[in-house]
């Protein structure tokens, strides 16, 4: 073998040298021959003439030698390509189906992979990202007043990323010899640049944020060491996106002032274009120091109960995770042991940054990738079947080629060339499709027209994935036909001109069964997601969702301090309530079904437990009209009224779930509850509703009148923005203009910056379910279509092969049904086999998506049977045409051809 490889290279690379050697050899042979003839007594001229004749022409010999050489492979490849191109042009229908199905399969796979790559694989654009770690803490029986994060709760265990600022400083000092520990906290502000105001997201960062990440700035400098404590720093580093969008690439940007929530900040640096922050999916526009005097803090930095700093670290070379963890555990235990048991620090890989959002996409993405892979597999299998069937019809041609001395390997190679060409064309189209498709997918995934805030650009990884997919596709598609072609029997093949000598396609059956199996799997998923969607649409939220308009206003960024916000909101509520055609309006701290909320601990004054006993509830600030406007019944006591004003005794309403969980034996009405720094009296109990999201079971909720909250006391009650619900007596959107005017009457500088109806919110809430339902339905549709093509091809082949048999039977008096029934029976058998296999697969596979279903079990019999029935119906319909053709065979014509 090495010898052959050497000759291949010699032949390819040193073509001239090889030719030269051959020429030398032929010349020497001529001379030897001439000499021989001269020895017999001929003159030199005559001898040379005869020698040339005997050799048979130098050029002819040279060509013949060239042909046996290994370099010929390339020449053969070109010939195969030409043959394939001719073959494909001759069958435009077949070619179109093949290319399109592969293009869809490969395109879908590549598009999903671009998302997987961008969201799950891509590292932060910094040197040595593998050294980065994200810090996370866990603890048992956590009693916490204010956590600026949802966190993970399992039983009494809790885990989250946010820490207090003192804890962060302690960790940073403790780990200093092992890692550079840095902190940051996302903030939302109203920014003003060159007289343009807009809502913006940025980050407060510790002074070592940029140095630890090792980001190289495009312009200017990062924040200076110590700048976070100097207390008066007004430096800001802006993103490339901001520099482009708001400053038009102004090279003299440094020193420019921009306003953040009304505070002047001086631009000291601009980040490079690829750095979009350490929280993938949430682009940050600016970076300000986390300083003691920062206007973005709600509480002093040094306070130990405000958990809001996210912490990451860059491990120093030589330091291990275990060492760092041991060091940080000590520091964290010091800070956290007063409010939790078993405080621990966990180190997560940080090469992607703080990828909480990305991790939420992990499961759906991987699931989607495998589903798309399945569809591609169907496309391959299907094409393999089609090529095999066609190959069988080409038995005669192949037999001729074998009989004429064509090698088996040569024919197999030809067959692979065909699948490679199809896969390449399909793949090229598919990769183009994927560029369009990934944008659509990203929009579908994000549930908004902006799409995901990830960098989805085509990179080397995605391209490699595309190319590898094409090659694997070619291999899978070409393998079966190649094997079949390799077994051509020239004698049997030559005996007849038709497809009669063709072998029975037992592999073809296996292919159809596997396609039905995969289709079954996809159909089941589609069915389950569709039913989930329907169930979610039918969920009773517990409150009246018809004719409800939701509005948002954001006075917080427009100079309203917390104290003035209360009166502003009260005025807006009154103004909205007075709209003609409206039937009341209410303040809402958080929008219904918005997945946004604020929660925290409380305790009953009349028990001696204090915060020690963990009582947690969601907290919702509402207007006094809330229960009437939303249509939530009060079961016990009373709702709020206008008498519950700012200076009146503080009152709350709780829901049934809270009563059942925390006050099951005592009448809750009249009990005093301590929350944060105040006492509140329970005046009523309302019915449980699904306020925060569609799927949740009712959780304990405390409702407060917003007028009684001292705004700004904690981050959760800051209410820079607030929502209003407006109940209408006509289509809700028709009152929008009136609502805008009502708000403008209060303050014309503050617009309504977000509008929704209850229905649209509900739709948004079901975004992911809808995504999966749509995807699975379309993919299942595609798989079924492919399956039909495959089945049709197989049955058509079958019928063609058995035409003489049918002709004979019809000639002997068989009726139409005698011919069609066995064919349809066979199809049903295949379908049944595929169904059983698919059922087994579906029972296993659907368990994986259990968490995404709602109101339907993974092995829902109705869905399974429905999918099977649909498959059977489609299969029989598909087979009908070939069966009918078999029954209409004209015995005279058919038999005459024999």
């Amino acid at each position, binding site marked *: 073998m090495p*010898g052959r490889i050497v000759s291949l290279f010699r032949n390819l690379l040193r073509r001239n040298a090889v030719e030269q050697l*051959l020429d030398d050899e032929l010349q020497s*042979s001529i001379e*030897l021959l001439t000499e021989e003839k001269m020895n017999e007594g001929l003159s030199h001229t005559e001898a040379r003439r005869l020698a040339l004749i005997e050799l048979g022409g130098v050029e002819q010999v040279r060509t013949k030698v060239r042909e*046996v050489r290994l370099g010929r492979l390339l020449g053969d490849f070109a010939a195969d390509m030409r043959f394939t191109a001719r073959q494909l042009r001759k069958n435009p229908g077949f070619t179109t189906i093949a290319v399109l199905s592969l293009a869809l399969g490969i395109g879908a796979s590549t598009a999903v992979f671009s998302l997987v790559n961008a969201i799950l694989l891509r590292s932060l654009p910094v040197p040595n990202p593998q050294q980065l770690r994200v810090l996370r803490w866990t603890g048992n029986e956590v009693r916490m007043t204010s956590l600026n994060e949802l966190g993970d709760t399992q039983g009494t265990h809790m885990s989250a990323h946010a820490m207090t600022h003192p804890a962060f400083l302690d960790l940073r000092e403790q780990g200093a010899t092992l890692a550079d520990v840095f902190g940051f906290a996302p903030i939302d502000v109203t920014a003003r640049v060159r007289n343009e105001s807009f809502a913006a997201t940025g980050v407060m960062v510790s002074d070592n944020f940029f140095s630890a990440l090792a980001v190289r700035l495009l312009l200017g400098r990062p924040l200076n060491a110590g700048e976070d404590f100097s207390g008066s720093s007004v430096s800001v580093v802006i993103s490339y996106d901001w520099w482009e969008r708001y400053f038009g690439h102004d090279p003299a940007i440094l020193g420019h002032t921009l306003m953040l929530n009304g505070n002047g900040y001086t631009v000291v640096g601009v980040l490079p274009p690829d750095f979009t922050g350490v929280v993938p999916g949430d682009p940050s526009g600016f970076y300000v120091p986390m300083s003691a005097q920062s206007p973005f803090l709600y509480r002093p930095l040094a306070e130990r109960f405000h958990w809001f700093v996210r912490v990451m670290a860059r491990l120093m070379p030589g330091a291990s995770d275990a060492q760092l963890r041991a060091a940080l555990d000590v520091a964290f235990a010091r800070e956290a042991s007063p409010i939790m048991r078993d405080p621990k620090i966990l180190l997560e890989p940080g090469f992607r940054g703080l990828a909480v959002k990305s991790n939420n996409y992990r499961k759906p993405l991987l699931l989607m990738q495998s589903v798309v892979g399945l569809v591609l597999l169907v496309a391959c299998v299907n094409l393999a079947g089609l090529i095999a069937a066609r190959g069988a019809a080409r038995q005669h041609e192949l037999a001729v080629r074998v009989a004429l001395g064509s090698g088996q390997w040569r024919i197999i190679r030809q067959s692979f060339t065909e699948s490679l060409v199809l896969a390449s064309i399909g793949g090229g189209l598919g990769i183009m499709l994927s560029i369009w498709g990934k944008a659509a997918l990203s929009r579908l995934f994000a549930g908004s027209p902006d799409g995901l805030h990830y960098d989805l650009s085509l990179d080397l990884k995605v391209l490699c994935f595309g190319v590898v997919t094409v090659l694997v596709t070619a291999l899978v598609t070409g393998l079966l036909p190649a094997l079949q072609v390799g077994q051509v029997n020239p004698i049997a093949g030559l005996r007849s001109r038709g497809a009669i000598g063709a072998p029975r396609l037992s592999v073809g059956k296996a292919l159809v069964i596997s396609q039905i199996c995969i289709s079954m799997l996809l159909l089941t998923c589609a069915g389950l997601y569709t039913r989930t969607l329907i169930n979610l649409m039918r969920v009773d939220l517990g409150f009246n969702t018809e004719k409800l308009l939701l509005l948002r206003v954001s006075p917080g960024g427009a100079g309203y301090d917390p104290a003035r916000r209360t009166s502003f909101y009260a005025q807006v509520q009154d103004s909205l309530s007075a709209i003609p055609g409206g039937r009341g309006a209410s303040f809402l701290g958080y929008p219904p079904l918005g997945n946004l909320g604020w929660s925290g601990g409380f305790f009953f004054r009349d028990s001696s437990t204090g915060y020690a006993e963990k009582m947690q509830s969601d907290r919702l600030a509402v207007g006094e009209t809330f229960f009437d406007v939303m249509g939530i019944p009060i079961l016990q006591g009373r709702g709020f009224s206008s008498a519950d004003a700012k200076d009146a005794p503080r009152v709350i309403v709780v829901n049934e779930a809270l009563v059942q969980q925390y006050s099951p034996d005592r009448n809750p009405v009249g009990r005093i509850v301590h929350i944060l720094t105040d006492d509140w009296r329970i005046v009523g109990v309302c019915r449980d509703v699904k306020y925060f999201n569609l799927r949740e079971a009712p959780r304990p909720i405390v409702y407060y009148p917003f007028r009684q909250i001292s705004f700004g006391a904690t981050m959760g009650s800051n209410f820079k923005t607030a929502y209003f619900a407006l109940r209408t007596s006509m289509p809700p959107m028709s009152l929008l203009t009136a609502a805008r005017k009502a708000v403008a009457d209060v303050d014309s500088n503050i617009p309504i910056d977000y509008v929704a109806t209850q229905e649209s919110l509900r739709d948004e809430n079901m975004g992911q379910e809808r995504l999966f339902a749509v995807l699975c339905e379309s993919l299942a549709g595609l798989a079924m279509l492919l399956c039909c093509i495959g089945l049709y091809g197989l049955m058509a082949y079958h019928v063609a092969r058995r035409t003489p048999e049918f002709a004979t039977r019809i000639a002997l008096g068989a009726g139409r049904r005698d011919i069609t029934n066995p064919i349809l029976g066979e199809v049903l058998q295949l379908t049944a086999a595929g169904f059983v296999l698919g059922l087994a697969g579906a029972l296993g596979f659907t368990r994986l998506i259990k968490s995404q279903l709602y109101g339907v079990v993974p092995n829902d019999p109705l869905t399974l049977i429905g999918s099977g029935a649909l498959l059977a119906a489609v299969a029989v319909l598909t087979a009908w045409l070939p069966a009918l053709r078999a029954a209409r065979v004209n015995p005279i014509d058919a038999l005459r051809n024999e």
Partner: protein
Amino acid sequence: MNPKRTELLRGTLDLLILKALALEPLHGVGISRRVTQITQGAFEVSFGSLFPSLHRMEEKGWVAAEWGASENNRRAKYYRLTASGRAQLKVEERDWNLLVKIMTAAVESA
């Protein structure tokens, strides 16, 4: 000496070339002459078949070639059998004998 040109069956040529080289290394013309000699003049190998076969066998490693001087001191490319060439010769001889036996039996049975 006027041997009739007989079309050689594919495969037979390989056997004849290997057989010709079994005794001693030969150049192309020498092989052609040796084949004519050992077939007692029945076959004359055309060079259009001989050279492709030789090159194919060289790539397969059955024969090796090197340049040397002919008996009259002319430069010529000499082919010699390699170890795997000898093994191949044995295989082809056995196959041939088998074929002859079968064919003979078949022809005589009629």
